[in-house]
Structures are given as structure tokens and as C-alpha cells.
């Protein structure tokens, strides 16, 4: 049975990464995973400065990713602390610096 919107979602996801990816990361054993890396300022308890790093990728690009998977972006090593699939083919990986 045709699923035209699913096909559209897949095309949009692919286009999003193709046009907006700002890094090529190593995710576990998979290298060259393109994604959008965010690392905006975020403090804890209003007193400890920090950031909230995350990487948005195509779910299919790293299907085995899980809590604890090693990620390297621009020479900086991270660990995945949470995997947040959006259910439409994109997954946001929440990261913690090693």
C-alpha cells in the first residue's frame, strides 16, 4: 500500500541532513555520520555554567547507537547519555563530554 507521506518524511529528513549538517561524527564504530551538532549554553541550578551538547542524525545512520556509545566530534570525545528518536526517522543523541 502506498505511503506517500512516509516517503515525503524520508526525503525531508535526508534533505535536512544534506543541507544543515554541520559535523561529520564518529558514532560508535560508524564514522562519517553527518548531523547537526548543537552545543548551546545551559547552566545547572542557575550557578554552574555549561552547555547541552546534542547531535541530530538520521536514525538509519547509526541504528545501533545506545546509552554509553562513544561519539567523537571535531576531536572531542563524548558519551551518549540519551537516545531520542522522533519516530519519523531522525534521532537526537544527548551527549556528555568524556
Amino acid at each position: 500500500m502506498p505511503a506517500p507521506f512516509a516517503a515525503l518524511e524520508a526525503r525531508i529528513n535526508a534533505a535536512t541532513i544534506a543541507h544543515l549538517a554541520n559535523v561529520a561524527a564518529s558514532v560508535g564504530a560508524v564514522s562519517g555520520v553527518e548531523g547537526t551538532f548543537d552545543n548551546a549554553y545551559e547552566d545547572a541550578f542557575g550557578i554552574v555554567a555549561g552547555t547541552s551538547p546534542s547531535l541530530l542524525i538520521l536514525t538509519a545512520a547509526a541504528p545501533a547507537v545506545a546509552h554509553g556509545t562513544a561519539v567523537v566530534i571535531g576531536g572531542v570525545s563524548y558519551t551518549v547519555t540519551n537516545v531520542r528518536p522522533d519516530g519519523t526517522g531522525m534521532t537526537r543523541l544527548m551527549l556528555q563530554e568524556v
Partner: protein
Amino acid sequence: MADHLHKQIRAALVTALTGLTTSGARVYANRLAPLPDTTSPTLLVTLDDEQAAGMTIHQPQVQDRTLSLSVAAVVKASSAVDDTLDLMSKEVEIALAAGITVTGRNLPVFYQGMSFEDAQADKPVGIKRMTFSIPFTAMSNAPDVLT
């Protein structure tokens, strides 16, 4: 005229807590600016509130005061945040167990308890907030002098 006893007590607390093994010189009183990574592990000293009870009828009044304060141990690290916080609280409790010195007099510092919070950021962050009380006596018209 000397500084208000609150300021003198706060300064004495910072002196007593400076140089501990884990936090070293990273001791701040009433700090509002966010702490960068380079300041971890840190101790934050804050005076929280004070209760005063008059001991005489006439003015100026002799007042028994109890100052409540908190010492927050703050750690941001990739691992062992809770272990480091526990070590810091041990060092703090020992450092204050003998009291503090204000204008040459010893003021007792009594441990009241603690609360703990942690959060996930680019590295794990934890805060162990210890509360203490300090009883002292002062005249209502001379809050800068211990009675």
C-alpha cells in the same frame, strides 16, 4: 565602626573553609555569577536567614541571635561527582566543627543537615548543600559587636 557581624561571620567562614584539600582556594561568599569549569570543585557560602529573640525589655535590647547559613559543595566532573561531594562535605564539617573565630572569640557552628541535587549537562553536575547554625549575642544598637 566595625562591619556588621554578618559580614564578619561570613568572612570568618570563608577563612575557615579556604585551603581544604579538595576545594582549595575556590571558596566564594554569596556568589551570583555562574561558575565556569575551572572553578570546580567549589564551595559557596551563603547566609540564609537569622532569628533574633530579645533578652531584655528595655532598649537597647540584648538579643540572642541564631544565624542560619549554607555551604554548598559544587562539583562538575565526568565521573565520581557524588564521591567528590561526600569527600568535600567531610572536609567542610571537620573544618567547622571547632567553630569560627570572630574578633578573637570562638563562635560555635552547628551542622543542621544537607540536601543534594544533580543534573546532566556537558558533564554531570552535583550540589551538596550543607546547612549550619551559629548562635551569638549582640546588642540591638550594635550589630557589629559580639556581646
